């Protein structure tokens, strides 16, 4: 298993500002994933953060809006830029199980952002 810590756990932000979410894992992982969960909705993958290369973004998400850093195998950040109320969501950091037999995702506690 993996223990994932996210900061901040929640924040209230003003329109037009940017916020960076940090994700720390207690073990080295190749890929980290950033998901968005809008109120009452399911999870949508924003991007996959690869160490040593640029993040891979899913359709509908762009680097200018959601820049991601991955400086090492245990840490990543997601920035939500130029926020609007539509960005109010829970943002989840996750990693895949390191054992080839598990195949599961482990999640951080999430960062709940409210944009006014």
């Amino acid at each position, binding site marked *: 298993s993996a223990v994932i810590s996210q900061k901040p756990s929640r924040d209230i932000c003003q329109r037009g500002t940017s916020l960076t979410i940090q994700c720390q894992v207690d073990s080295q992982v190749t890929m980290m*994933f950033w998901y968005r969960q809008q109120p009452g909705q399911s999870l949508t993958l924003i991007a996959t953060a690869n160490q040593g290369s640029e993040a891979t973004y899913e359709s509908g998400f762009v680097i200018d809006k959601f820049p991601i850093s991955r400086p090492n195998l245990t840490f990543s950040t997601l920035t939500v830029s130029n926020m609007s109320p539509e960005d109010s969501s829970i943002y989840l950091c996750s990693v895949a199980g390191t054992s080839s037999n*598990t*195949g599961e*995702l482990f999640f951080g506690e*999430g960062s709940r952002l409210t944009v006014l």
Partner: protein
Amino acid sequence: AQTVTQSQPEMSVQEAETVTLSCTYDTSENNYYLFWYKQPPSRQMILVIRQEAYKQQNATENRFSVNFQKAAKSFSLKISDSQLGDTAMYFCAFRTNTGNQFYFGTGTSLTVIP
């Protein structure tokens, strides 16, 4: 394309009773993983149970079990002896054996009634 469908947005069950949450999926893959995740109110999403598609035996974890019907592409979750702590959103998820992309259903909000 892979899709996961949960047709029950909300369900409720009396404490100590049994409830079944439905999930269907669509894929052309033969090898894959299926998962049920639990997300309690304002808390972390955690894995409830996992099923490998190549295994015919249904997975069981204490009070949680699945009914995996590969031909029908169905993966339901049965919760026995429901407890108040089972109140949560439950997400069904799918992952291919080769990729790292997970596909989530829209979730079922389960309320256990005292």
